[in-house]
């Protein structure tokens, strides 16, 4: 199925969990924040969120800034 991650379309397996997606992308869960269909996902429930078709995800983290 396709999902949108950080504005880009991605093909992923159906019923992929968020935690599995992070592992696939090589992204560490610590200090990453996730918005799933406009909702902020708390870090402790990542493995309980299953992705659906056309889901929109924003994966963000801290960078240097003033």
């Amino acid at each position, binding site marked *: 199925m396709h999902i949108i991650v*950080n*504005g880009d379309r991605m093909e992923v397996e159906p019923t992929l969990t968020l935690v599995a997606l992070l592992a696939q*992308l*090589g*992204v*560490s869960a610590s*200090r*990453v*924040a*996730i*918005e799933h269909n406009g909702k*902020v*996902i*708390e*870090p402790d429930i990542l493995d309980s969120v299953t992705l659906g078709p056309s889901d929109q995800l*924003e*994966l*963000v*983290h*801290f*960078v*240097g*800034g*003033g």
Partner: protein
Amino acid sequence: MKALEPLRINGRPFASRLFVGTGKFSSPQVMAEAVTASGTELVTVALRRVDFQAPADRTLSSLDFSRYHLLPNTSGARDAAEAVRIARLSQAASGTNWIKLEVTPDPNYLLPDPVETLSAAQQLVELGFVVLPYINADPVLARRLADVGCATVMPLAAPIGSNRGLLTRDQLRIIIDQATVPVVVDAGLGMPSHAAEAIELGADAVLVNTAIAIADDPVRMARAFKSAVEAAELARLAGPGHQSHQARASSPLTGFLGDEA
């Protein structure tokens, strides 16, 4: 001159009145060394999309977060809704409910939008955030933000990254005079003397990023800013004399050689 009170923001004490931004450094190592050299206890960071080509941003992995209080900013927000969104994501990413509220839609001058800032501040305070709003040096806006529950006000000295010093000094004086929360002068400080002057005017702290990050030797510049802020603090504690228009002689006015009897 305003009496110096120990710096506390939302009840948290800070021994250093110099806050440092982490942007624009030439490398993560230089940034970490400069932050250490500055003696700061608070650093700002920004929130951006993970780059999947380089998912582990090394910039911040060089920083020991146990030594500094983290203050995420809402840079990139063009309106209140985006600022609230970024703040919520920052909290999820870090666990801190402190947020530097920054709504700067114009890319040329990066001036903060006062209407969106006030709206976002009200929403964020209601959501339980400790809000430190970045504003133009508008004394009326500063009072409004303190009234809605912001933990500080952060008026600019000059546009972000301009290094031009206290262009807004007259307005800053008014803000400082009327402040009911700590005043952190933020943006545009280019030299240690600017930071010292801000503290001497009565500001409670300063935030510096560009001036340190783009110096040829950022570590040395961080040390210079540290010294300047400490000097200004000492001066306030020392109880400076008044200014006068006329001279007040430093040497005695009697016993001159060759005086007539």
